[in-house]
């Protein structure tokens, strides 16, 4: 289950087309912005449930 999702920036501060996904079991994944990726699909479902992706720090 998803704990948080944060957009990830590259070294120049631009969005790196990926997300940092933290699960409730403490696993942390770098997830590509790709509809064929199961973690990204889970993020979309999580957002549809009313959750929000945080902007990069």
């Amino acid at each position, binding site marked *: 289950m998803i704990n948080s999702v944060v957009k990830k920036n*590259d*070294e120049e501060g631009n969005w790196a087309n*990926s997300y940092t996904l933290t699960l409730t079991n403490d696993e942390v*994944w770098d997830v*590509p912005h*790709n509809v*064929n*990726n*199961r*973690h990204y699909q889970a993020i979309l479902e999580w957002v549809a449930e009313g959750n929000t992706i945080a902007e990069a720090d």
Partner: protein
Amino acid sequence: MTKAAELAKMGEVLTNGQIGGRRNMVINGAMQVAQRATSVTGLGDGDEGYVAQDRWRHTVAAGAGRYTATQTAITDLPGFANCFKMACTTADTSIAATERFMFVQRIEGQDLQQLKKGTSDAEKVTVSFYVKGHDSATYVCALYDVDNDRFVGATFPVTTSWARQTITFPADTTGALGNDNTNDLELRFILHAGSNFTSGTLATAWESATVANFAVGINSIFESTSATFFLTGVQLEVGSQATPFEHRSFGEELALCHRYFIKDDTDYRAYTNHQSDAGSRAGNFHFPTIMRDVPSMTASVDAGSITFQSRTTHGVAMTIGGSVGTNTKFTTFSADSEL
């Protein structure tokens, strides 16, 4: 079986292609590969995903039941060394309507074109597997056509001794499977379900998916803390005959699994060409096989922080920044492109 019937079955096997080439469309059917873990406790209540054996997904709705999933050594089924074991650790005897547990293998459509599904030449498909449990029970084995939202299932018995179960599903002339790398067909073992999935009539012929017809007549794996379920030798093949299980070497099976998941915890040094100085490190990791799609990544290093700079189905470029010593090393590294 009469001699004539036996000869007829042999003839069918010879002519329908079941003895030609690789027969089993299931990967890791003998439960040999478990890159993530060999035992995971406390599962349940929405813990969806891949936890133990490679390629086998746990679909778990919210509920009170908890279980342990393990790759377990077999001593009482000649020819097989490993199985999936599910052991209930917290019972759930008040099953909510939405509850469900399924043990699932998702299959790419491009690997299923031989089924000719959705055409007038569609083939029957046969599932066979070895199963046992703590007591007599009934569960459902099913196929779910993700592309066309169609379903067919059958109940199967479980006893306290290993037995091979064989189910032949009818050909489906409706709904072609995409010739692509996405999840097009799911092989499901349904071991627990609430009334949303049990209140209809089991869909034993292909039909537009109606959830009430998914799991009619099953027992629950969460009925008591003594409940167990053991599974191995899973085979999905074209035709109406269950041929002997297609044993593959561990190396073959691991290579097939690497298309979907790679884990390296061999604790190797990062970028030894820079070991003489401190500072950031950069390098490439080439996957052992081309992955299904661009993977999610996770890695741990003993110092600094890792950034995945770019990635493809072939590999990933990474940097390790921060206070990196001369002997920085990866402790774990995983790439996930599962369905």
